[in-house]
C-alpha cells in the first residue's frame, strides 16, 4: 500500500508485515514496529491535533514521551482512552485512533476562532474578566471555558481490564537503556548484582537504535544493543523490562515503574493485566534517562511539519520514515546537522541548514557542501507559512547590531529544528536532589545525590558515544559495588564516531517582526508564547513558580520537559536576572502520565477491601437476610419474610425475642484474651471499672476512655481464671482497642506480667436471647449447670456445645435472659445451624443488627459511636456507676478532672418520648427549648438513637441534651422542616426498668 513517505529500505520496522489502522476514520497502513506517529508520518499525515487554547493545527513534534501535540484517543472494545501520545502508541492491526479537541473535525475546527481572538486571551486573561454580572460566572462563563478546555473526551464505560502489581527488590535499578544505561546494566550485572533494567520504549537501546554515524566494536550500534540485551537476558540476576517507565522516585530508594503489558497487542489475552505496577526497592539506582532536544522559539514555530531534528532522524533511521520531501533544518547546535545528512543520504531534498551560529564547525559545513546542501550561518527563522502543514519559512540574518535583517524565504514541507539538548533530570529531581547549572553543557544537571542514586550519560549532561558508554560502565560498576560490595572487570566496548557536538540556544530567538503580535510558542500544548511569559513578568510575577502558574507554561502533560528551559531564559531576560537566579520549578511524579488503574491495582470489587464474614453468612444469604457493612464485616441486618419491609421484619424480630427467643450472630465483636499474673491490674488501669475483686466465672461491663476522658469503647469482660480474662470490644473498635492496650502495656507499663492476644477470629459467637433461651441451649450444653442459681446473670463458664469446647457467657444486650456461646470458628457453622434449628422449634427467630439496636435501646444500653461521638464522658452518659471511685488511676481519670469536663451545662444522655407516640424522631435531629427557634439558635442537643419500640408500642429515642439529667419530665422540641415535634425528656431505660426479665 502507498506509504509515500516510507524510505526504500532501512529502519527497524518489519516491512513484510503490513498493518491496517484508522485515524479519524480514514484507513491507513503501516508496519509492525511502527508507532502510530511513525505510521502517520509514513502516510504524510502531520496534522494530528488542535492546541489547547487557540485550537491551532498541530503536528507531531517529537518521537518520544515528551510529545506535546500528538495526543490521540485510541479505541479498544468500543471505548477510547484519551490523551495517548501517538509517539508511544505501538501500531497493531486494526488500531483505531481519533484526534482530539476539535469540532466538528480536525481539518475544520470552529474553536480556531480563538486563534483570531487571541489578542483578547493573553496569559491570565480569565482573572481579569468574567466578573460581571456576578451570577454569570458559574452559569455562563465557566461552562463555556470548561467546554473549550480539556483535551480528549473521557472514556464512557467502566474499564474491565485488570492491572497487576509486583513488589521487587534489587541491588541496582537502571532507568533507561541508551548507551550509558546499557553499559551500566552490563557492568552491574557482571558483578552478580541483582539488576533491573527498564526502558519506557518498546525496544531497548534508546538513541543507539537511530544512530547511523557510529559503530561500537565495529558493529552497527543496533547490533551491539541486540547482543548486549541477549547477554543480559541470559543472566539469572537480571530482569529486563521494556515498555516500562520509571515514573516515581520516592523516599528511601523506592521507585515505581509502570509496565505496559498488553496495550501494544491487537488481541491481548484477557487474563493478562493491561499494565503492571512494579514497586521496587533498589539498593542503588542508576538514572540513565538521556536528554531531549529543545524546540527553538521563533514565530509560528508550531505548524504541522515542524519537528525536532532528532525526532526527524529517529523517524528516518529507526522507522524508515521521511518527515518530508523538502526538508529545512534550523539549528543552533551540531547534532541537527547529522539529521540533515541522514535525510540527504536517503534521497530527501534538504533545502537548507539554517544555523544560528555565525561559524558552525568547518567539518560539518564541508560535509554539507559535499552533499550539496545550502548552509545559512548566523540565521534564524522569523516566520513560517502554511496552515495545516508548513509550506515555507522566512529567514532572518543576524546583524552585528543585534537586529535581524530579512533573509528571504525557503519553500519546504517539513522543518527540523534543534535548540540543543536538555538532560532529563525529572527522576533525579523527584529523588529530591537539587540540579546545578553546568555552563559548559548549557544545562541544569544533577547536583549532589540525596538518595542512593547516580545519573549517567546524557541525563548527567554528558554527550558523545564513547563518553556515555564509559560513564555508564562506571555508574554500573559503582552502583553494584555500593549495593553489594562486589565488583568485576568487564571489557569495555570501543566506539568509532558519535562524537559529542556543540552548540545550543535558550529562550526566544531574535526576529524582525513585532514581538508583541507574533506567536512564538514556548509550551506547545498549553499555548504559552514568549510574550505570555513576558506579560507575566510585567505584571509582577517574579518567581518562576508564579510565571508558571500565571501562564501555565510547564503544566502540560510533559510537565515542561520541552518548555522549561526556554521559558526560564525568557523570564530571565524579562526580569533582567541571571537564569540561575530565577529559580526552577520542581519535577513531580509521575514522570509521564500514569493510568489510574495501575495505582488502584487489584483493589476493586470484592477485593477493594477485605470482606469479613462470620460462619453464619451463607445461612443468612439462604434465608434472604440483608447485610449491613460494619467496618470490614458483613453483619446480618434483618431477615424479611414474605415480602416484609424493614419495619415489619424488625418489629416481628423484636416481638419474638421478647416473647420467645431470638438468635443473633455476635461473632464480629472484638475479643481479646488478657493473660498473666497482672491481668486484673492491667484491666484496672485500662478500664474505668474495678476488676481485682471480680471472681472467676463472673463478668462485668467495662467502659474504656481515652486519656482525654472521653468514652471510646465498651464491652463485657469475663474472668475465666485469676490470671485470665476474656475481653470483648465493639466490632468497629476491635483493632484500635487492641492497639491502644499494646501501647500502654509496652510503653507505659512494661513491668506488668500480662500479655494480650486477639481472639476475635478464634471464636464464632451466637447470642441466644429471650425467655426461652435456656430451653434452646440446654440440649447442647454439657458440663455445667445452667440454672439461674448456678449460672446467674453476668457469669461465664467453660463447657461444651455438642461436644465442642465452648465459653458460655450469660449476658444480655436485649434485657432478656440471654446467653452468648463462643465456639471455635471452625465449629461456628455447626453451632449456628444447630441453634437455628432449635429456635425454630420454640417459635424463635434469627434477628439482625437492626432488631438488636431496637432491643438494646428499649433498655437504654448505649452504642459507642452512635449514642457517643468522642465528646461524651461517663458522667454525660449517665454511667458514673462504671467508674471505680477508689482507683488510683485509669486511662482517662486525669482527663475527666479538666474544667470543661466537669463543667455545668454539659450535654447528657437522656431518653426522649414524643408527645405523639406514633411519630418516630429522625436520628441526628436537633433538640431545642423553643418550639420555633430562630435560625442560628444553638441546639440543646441531638437525637442519637430513635426507633419504633414494639414492646412499648410507641416510638422511643435517646438523645444527648444539654443538662439533660436535670430536665427529666420537661418538654423540649425537635424542629423539623415540616414543623416542630414536641417531646418529653425521660430516663434512658424504657422497658423493664427493674430488670426483672434478666433475672430468670
Amino acid at each position, binding site marked *: 500500500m502507498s506509504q509515500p513517505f516510507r524510505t526504500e529500505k532501512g529502519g527497524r520496522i518489519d516491512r513484510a508485515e503490513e498493518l491496517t489502522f484508522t485515524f479519524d476514520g480514514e484507513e491507513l497502513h503501516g508496519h509492525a514496529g511502527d508507532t502510530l506517529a511513525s505510521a502517520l508520518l509514513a502516510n504524510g499525515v502531520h496534522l494530528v491535533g488542535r492546541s489547547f487554547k487557540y485550537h491551532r493545527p498541530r503536528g507531531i513534534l517529537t518521537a518520544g514521551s515528551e510529545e506535546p501535540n500528538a495526543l490521540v484517543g485510541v479505541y479498544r472494545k468500543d471505548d477510547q482512552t484519551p490523551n495517548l501520545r501517538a509517539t508511544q502508541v505501538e501500531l497493531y492491526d486494526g488500531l483505531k485512533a481519533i484526534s482530539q479537541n476539535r469540532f466538528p473535525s480536525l481539518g475544520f475546527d470552529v474553536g480556531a476562532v480563538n486563534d483570531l481572538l487571541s489578542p483578547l486571551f493573553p496569559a491570565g486573561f480569565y482573572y481579569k474578566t468574567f466578573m460581571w454580572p456576578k451570577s454569570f460566572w458559574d452559569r455562563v462563563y465557566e461552562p463555556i471555558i470548561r467546554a473549550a478546555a480539556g483535551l480528549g473526551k473521557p472514556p464512557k464505560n467502566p474499564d474491565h481490564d485488570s492491572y497487576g502489581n509486583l513488589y521487587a527488590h534489587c541491588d541496582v535499578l537502571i532507568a533507561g537503556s541508551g548507551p550509558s544505561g546499557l553499559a551500566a546494566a552490563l557492568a552491574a550485572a557482571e558483578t552478580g548484582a541483582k539488576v533491573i533494567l527498564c526502558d519506557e520504549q518498546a525496544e531497548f537501546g534508546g538513541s543507539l537504535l537511530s544512530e547511523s554515524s557510529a559503530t561500537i566494536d565495529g558493529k552497527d550500534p543496533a547490533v551491539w544493543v541486540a547482543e548486549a540485551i541477549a547477554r543480559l537476558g541470559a543472566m539469572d540476576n537480571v530482569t529486563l523490562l521494556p515498555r516500562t517507565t520509571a515514573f516515581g522516585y520516592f523516599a528511601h530508594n523506592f521507585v515505581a515503574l509502570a509496565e505496559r503489558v498488553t496495550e501494544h497487542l491487537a488481541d491481548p489475552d484477557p487474563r493478562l493485566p493491561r499494565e503492571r505496577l512494579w514497586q521496587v526497592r533498589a539498593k542503588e539506582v542508576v538514572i540513565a534517562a538521556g536528554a531531549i532536544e529543545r524546540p527553538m522559539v521563533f514565530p509560528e514555530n508550531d505548524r504541522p511539519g515542524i519537528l525536532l531534528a532528532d525526532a526527524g532522524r529517529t523517524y528516518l533511521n529507526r522507522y524508515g520514515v521521511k518527515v518530508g520531501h523538502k526538508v529545512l533544518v534550523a539549528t543552533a547546535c551540531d547534532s541537527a546537522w547529522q539529521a540533515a545528512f541522514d535525510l540527504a543520504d536517503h534521497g530527501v531534498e534538504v533545502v537548507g541548514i539554517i544555523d544560528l551560529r555565525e561559524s558552525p564547525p568547518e567539518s560539518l559545513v564541508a560535509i554539507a557542501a559535499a552533499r550539496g546542501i545550502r548552509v545559512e550561518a548566523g540565521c534564524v527563522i522569523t516566520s513560517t507559512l502554511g496552515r495545516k502543514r508548513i509550506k515555507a519559512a522566512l529567514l532572518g540574518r543576524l546583524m552585528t547590531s543585534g537586529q535581524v535583517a530579512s533573509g528571504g524565504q525557503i519553500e519546504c514541507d517539513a522543518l527540523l529544528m534543534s535548540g540543543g539538548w536538555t538532560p532529563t533530570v525529572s527522576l533525579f529531581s523527584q529523588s529530591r536532589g537539587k540540579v546545578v547549572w553546568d555552563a559548559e553543557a548549557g544545562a541544569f544537571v544533577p547536583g549532589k545525590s540525596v538518595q542512593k542514586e547516580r545519573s549517567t550519560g546524557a541525563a548527567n549532561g554528558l554527550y558523545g558515544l564513547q563518553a556515555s558508554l564509559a560513564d555508564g560502565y562506571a555508574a554500573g560498576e559503582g552502583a553494584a559495588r555500593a549495593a553489594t560490595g562486589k565488583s568485576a572487570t568487564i571489557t569495555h566496548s570501543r566506539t568509532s564516531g558519535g562524537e559529542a557536538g556543540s552548540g545550543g540556544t535558550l529562550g526566544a530567538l531574535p526576529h524582525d517582526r513585532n514581538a508583541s503580535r507574533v506567536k512564538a510558542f514556548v509550551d506547545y500544548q498549553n499555548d504559552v508564547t514568549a510574550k505570555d511569559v513576558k506579560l507575566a513578568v510585567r505584571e509582577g510575577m517574579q518567581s518562576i513558580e508564579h510565571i508558571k502558574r500565571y501562564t501555565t507554561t510547564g503544566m502540560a502533560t510533559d510537565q515542561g520537559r520541552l518548555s522549561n528551559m526556554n521559558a526560564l531564559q525568557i523570564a530571565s531576560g524579562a526580569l533582567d536576572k541571571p537564569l540561575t537566579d530565577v529559580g526552577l520549578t520542581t519535577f513531580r511524579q509521575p514522570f509521564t502520565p500514569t493510568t489510574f488503574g495501575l495505582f488502584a491495582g487489584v483493589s476493586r470489587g470484592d477485593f477493594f477491601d477485605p470482606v469479613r464474614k462470620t460462619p453464619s453468612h451463607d445461612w443468612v444469604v439462604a434465608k434472604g437476610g440483608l447485610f449491613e457493612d460494619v467496618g470490614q464485616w458483613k453483619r446480618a441486618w434483618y431477615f424479611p419474610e414474605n415480602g416484609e419491609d424493614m419495619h415489619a421484619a424488625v418489629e416481628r424480630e423484636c416481638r419474638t425475642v421478647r416473647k420467645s427467643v431470638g438468635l443473633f450472630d455476635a461473632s464480629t465483636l472484638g475479643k481479646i484474651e488478657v493473660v498473666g499474673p497482672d491481668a486484673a491490674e492491667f484491666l484496672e488501669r485500662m478500664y474505668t471499672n474495678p476488676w481485682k475483686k471480680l471472681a472467676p466465672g463472673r463478668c462485668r461491663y467495662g467502659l474504656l476512655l481515652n486519656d482525654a476522658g472521653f468514652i471510646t469503647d465498651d464491652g463485657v469482660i469475663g474472668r475465666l481464671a485469676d490470671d485470665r480474662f476474656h475481653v470483648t470490644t465493639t466490632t468497629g473498635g476491635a483493632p484500635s482497642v487492641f492497639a491502644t492496650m499494646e501501647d500502654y502495656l509496652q510503653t507505659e507499663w512494661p513491668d506488668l506480667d500480662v500479655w494480650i492476644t486477639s481472639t476475635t477470629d478464634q471464636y464464632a459467637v451466637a447470642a441466644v436471647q429471650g425467655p426461652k433461651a435456656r430451653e434452646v441451649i440446654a440440649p447442647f450444653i454439657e458440663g455445667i449447670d445452667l440454672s439461674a442459681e448456678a449460672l446467674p446473670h453476668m457469669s461465664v463458664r467453660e463447657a461444651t456445645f455438642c461436644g465442642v469446647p465452648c465459653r458460655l457467657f450469660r449476658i444480655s444486650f436485649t434485657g432478656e435472659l440471654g446467653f452468648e456461646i463462643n465456639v471455635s470458628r471452625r465449629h461456628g457453622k455447626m453451632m449456628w445451624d444447630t441453634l437455628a434449628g432449635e429456635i425454630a422449634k420454640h417459635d424463635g427467630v434469627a434477628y439482625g443488627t437492626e432488631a438488636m439496636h431496637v432491643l438494646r435501646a428499649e433498655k437504654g444500653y448505649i452504642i459507642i459511636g452512635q449514642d457517643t461521638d468522642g465528646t461524651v464522658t461517663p458522667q454525660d452518659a449517665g454511667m458514673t456507676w462504671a467508674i471505680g471511685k477508689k482507683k488510683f488511676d485509669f486511662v482517662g481519670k486525669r482527663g475527666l478532672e479538666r*474544667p470543661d469536663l466537669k463543667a455545668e451545662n454539659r450535654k447528657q444522655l437522656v431518653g426522649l418520648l414524643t408527645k405523639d407516640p406514633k411519630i418516630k424522631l429522625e436520628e*441526628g435531629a436537633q433538640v431545642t427549648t423553643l418550639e420555633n427557634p430562630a435560625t442560628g439558635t444553638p441546639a440543646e442537643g441531638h437525637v442519637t438513637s430513635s426507633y419504633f419500640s414494639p414492646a412499648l408500642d410507641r416510638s422511643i429515642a435517646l438523645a444527648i441534651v444539654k443538662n439533660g439529667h436535670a430536665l427529666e419530665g420537661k418538654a423540649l422540641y425537635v424542629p423539623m422542616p415540616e414543623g416542630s415535634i414536641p417531646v418529653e425528656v425521660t430516663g434512658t431505660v424504657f422497658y423493664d426498668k427493674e430488670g426483672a426479665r434478666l433475672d430468670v
Partner: protein
Amino acid sequence: MKRYSFLELAKNAFSAHQNWGRQWRSPEPKAEYDVVIVGAGGHGLATAYYLAREHGIRNVAVIEKGWLGGGNTGRNTTIVRSNYLWEESAALYNHAIGLWQNLSQELNYNVMYSARGVMMLAHTIHDVQVAQRHIHANRLAGVQNEWLSPEQAKDYCPPLNISKNIRYPVLGAALQRVGGTARHDAVAWGYARGADALGVDIIQNCAVTGIRRSQDGSVEGVETAKGFIKAGKVGVVTAGHTSVVMEMAGVRLPLESFPLQALVSEPIKPAFPCVVMSNTIHAYISQSDKGELVIGAGTDQYVSYSQTGGIHISNHTIDAICELFPHFRRMRMLRNWGGIVDTTPDRSPILSKTPVPGLYVNCGWGTGGFKATPGSGHVFAHTIARDEPHPINAPFTIDRFRTGRLIDEAAAAAVAH
C-alpha cells in the same frame, strides 16, 4: 490600582498588552510597621487585606519566606464548603462562604468561585446517621445542606456508581449546593493585589528568623533575612511551619504537621459537574476549569516537612475513586504533589491571641484551610486590630485543649477537608 474588566482587556489588546501594570509591588521592608503578618499564603494575605480595608491599619507588612501563595494555598484541591457539624465551625466556615460569594467583585479579581455543589457520600448506616445529624444541625444554624438518595446523587453527579453490588455501596449523600471550588492561585493573587493597593508591603523571599520580645514579654518585632523589622503586633499564619515560627517566641502548640498529597489527571472535556467527597473510603474529587480531575488523598502518618509522601497513599485514594467512578480507571495521573498540613487534636483551627502580648496565631487548619480563607483573614484581622477575638473565632483558642472544650469535628466523624 487599575481596575480589571473585559473593556480594559479589550483596550489592552490594542496595545498588545504592553501597558498592564504590576499586580503588586516588590518593596524593600521598612524599619517599622504597625502589624507584621508572617506568611503570605491566602490566609495571611487576606488578613493583611482586611486589616487595611476594614480596620484602617495600612502600615502592614506580609513577610514571606518563599513566593506568595506558594504553600498550601497553591497546593490544595480548592474545595469550598461550610456544612460542618458544630455551631462554632459552621459559623466560621459559613462566614467564609458569605465572603466567597462576592470575592471576585470585592477584589476585582476573578477567583472563579464556582458553587457547583459539594456532595459527601454515605456508605454505611453510621455514615447516614452522621450525615443526617449534620444536615439537621446545619439547618438550624442556617447552613444549607440537604440529603439525597442514591438516585438523586447520581442525577446530580452522573458518573457516580450507585450499584448496590460494590464493596461499599452509596446509601445516599449530603449535598451543599453553595459549596464548590475556587481558583487557588487567584485567591492569593487577588488578595495580594488588593492589599498592595491599600498600602500593604508584601515582602517575598524573606525568611523570618526570630521573634523579638521586650522585657515585659510582649512582641517587639521580627528578625528577618533582611534585618530586624519592628512591629508591636505580629500575626503568624504559616500553616505547616507554625510550630517552627511560634517556637521563636517560646510558644508551644498542640500541632503536628503531616504530608498531604493531591493529584490531577490529564485534562479532559467536562466529565464531572460537582465536588464529591467520601470520608469512609477516603477520596475527594472535582474537575478543574482546565479539565483536570483534581483528587485529594489522605495524609501520611508521620510528621514531615518534605512535601512528599508515599505511593501507597495515592494507591488508596485512586482505588476509591475508581470504585466510585469506574470509567475513570483508564484516565491518567498527570501530576502528584504534597503539602504540609498542620493539624490539631480536634481537627479545628486555632485563631487566637497567644500568651505573648502582641503575638497572634492562625493555624491548625489541617486538610481544610482553603475554604475558610476569606473568613479566616477577616476574623483574624479583627482579632489583631482590636486585640480581642471576633465573636466567630472566640471559641478557637489555644486554651480549649487544656480545659477540654474541644470543637471536635474529627470525633463527630466529619473529616475536615
